[in-house]
């Protein structure tokens, strides 16, 4: 029942606490992200970006609203309609501010582990992991420990891990924050390449306004409310995917 959307949210709301201590971290967020679409999510600290990311990443259930992944209803309010960990394993990839590689595994093993937990055999997972590292240009460092890799190489390995199970969506939380401008742009362009070549939806939470031209769509969040960025609206006038983008609702 694939409708071409990597992820859809409807009226997503997250409330922490209750009564006088109630804080609305995310309010009525409705977003549709197509396969192959690269989306930036901007906003100041505390605006609800991470809450949105953890909600659609099936880590932190919303208080209300629905989440569909690959057209399949996964969360209906706080209630998970399936086993979230196995669903996350198969359909969602994560990339973090720091590369978050497991220090006691080599670069290739960091990718392999994502495959092995999805029941890949050791040999098949190693083959697939090596392909990904080659694709991302770090295969020559496959057997190195994460500590011996540069920041950019570590982030590429992390991207390879996120891609390992061919997820419907990659959620990236400030993936370039620890990188210099040139490396940061390289990683953003890598996301774009992956999205367009592999049809993966990519959501990137970022503060880096220098690379916004890489994204198909830019959203901004403030006080838990999401809206399509003015910058993005201006930019998409000349975009060849303008028609598609009009369908991407942002409330």
């Amino acid at each position, binding site marked *: 029942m694939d409708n071409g959307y990597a992820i859809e949210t409807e009226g997503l709301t997250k409330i922490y606490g209750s009564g006088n201590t109630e804080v609305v971290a995310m309010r009525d967020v409705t977003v549709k992200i197509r396969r192959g679409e690269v989306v930036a999510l901007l906003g100041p600290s505390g605006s609800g970006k991470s809450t949105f990311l953890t909600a659609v990443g099936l880590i932190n259930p919303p208080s209300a609203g629905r989440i569909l992944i690959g057209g399949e209803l996964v969360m209906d309010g706080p209630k998970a309609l399936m086993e979230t960990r196995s669903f996350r*394993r198969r359909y969602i990839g994560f990339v973090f501010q720091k590369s978050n590689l497991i220090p006691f595994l080599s670069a290739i093993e960091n990718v392999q*582990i994502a495959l092995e937990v999805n029941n890949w055999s050791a040999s098949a997972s190693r083959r697939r992991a090596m392909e990904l590292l080659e694709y991302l240009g770090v295969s020559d460092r496959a057997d190195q420990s994460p500590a011996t890799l540069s920041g950019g190489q570590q982030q590429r390995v992390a991207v390879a891990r996120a891609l390992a199970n061919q997820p419907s969506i990659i959620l990236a939380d400030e993936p370039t924050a620890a990188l210099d401008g040139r490396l940061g742009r390289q990683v953003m362009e890598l996301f774009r390449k992956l999205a367009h070549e592999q049809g993966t939806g990519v959501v990137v939470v970022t503060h880096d306004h220098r690379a916004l031209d890489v994204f198909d769509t830019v959203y901004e969040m403030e006080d838990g409310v999401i809206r399509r960025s003015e910058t993005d609206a201006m930019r998409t006038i000349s975009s060849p995917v303008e028609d598609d983008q009009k369908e991407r609702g942002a409330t």
Partner: protein
Amino acid sequence: MNLAVKDIRHNFGRFALTTVGVGMLLMIVMGMSGIYRGIIEDATLLVDESNADLWIVQRNTRGPFAEVSRVPANLVHRALAVPGVETAREFVYHTIQREREGKPIRIAVVGLSWPTDKGESLPLVAGRALARNHFEMIADRRLGLPLGERIRLGKESYTVVGITENMIGSAGDGLAFFTVADALDIQFDIPGEAVRLERQARFVRGTLSDLGRKQPALTETAFKLPWEIPSLGPRQISAVMVNVLPGTTPQSVAAVLAGWSDVSVYTAEGQRELLLLGPVEKVRRQIGLFRVLLTIIAGIIMALILYTLTLDKLHDIALLKLIGAPNRRILGMILQQALLLGVVGYGIAFLIGLRIFPRFPRRVILTDGDLMQLAAIVLVISVLSSVLGIWKAIRVEPNEALSG
């Protein structure tokens, strides 16, 4: 991919130090058990090695190993007259402390019933059995007396003609075997001046008594050496060991001997039990309690180590959960590390113990049963000690991986 092994290889130095620490702790637990076995073995060694069916000891005593026991040497002849008795041997046992090369040396003296017993049945590792009824001895290696060494005990010197191994008394002192006559000479060695004074005292007592005044020859007799005086009893030995004829039960002979009002009789098994219930019992309980405490401490330390190792990996565990690793994989990693810690620690304990225990002043005996029991205990405490780490790992939320 085995996450437990990967993590250990990554932090090998820390794991190695930790396992050595746990290993040393387990070695102490192992050693306690070995010391306990050693005490039992040492305590019962003579009873077991003597192969006697019955022990005749001083009335109302628990035998020469538990307390002082004195019976007349001629008890041997009385015992031999009992139907069903094949052999009766004198047994002398006492401990002496002397000085050798400026250091104290404690010797558990055992008298062999010459010529019936020359020590041929002893586990000799060098030299020979006794060939003369005087001035020769067989010494245990623990005494540190080399073959051919002459050692002065009392008024005489004795030559070491044989060396045994692991022949230890119940107090942990090395055994030395002499003829009964020599053993008694060593035990009742009295300085010449004391002998002269005693003879003089006997003579004076005789002259002061009516009998002495009426029969002066008696006072002359009283002035003689003790064994030349018929009215003085024979020398005292510690016990008499009896072996019964084939086809006769020790119990039936013991029933006869039990009727004698001047002695008590025990079967070999009874003597063994008395030993274990008497002098060894308190030590056994004390060591047993230490063992239990050390096992608990080892469990607590292992639990804390595993908990700390898990705390160090919480971020990685959250990350594994985030990428969808099932709980069994994460918990398996902690459990495998706990088992590795226990198994490697046990191996270290065993290897170090094998090298160190022989240097202990008392015997440390590692039996297969005790080693298996400790291995099982280590496995159990490994599993139990991982519970705290597993509990912590279960509570980790995947979103903790996002906190950087």
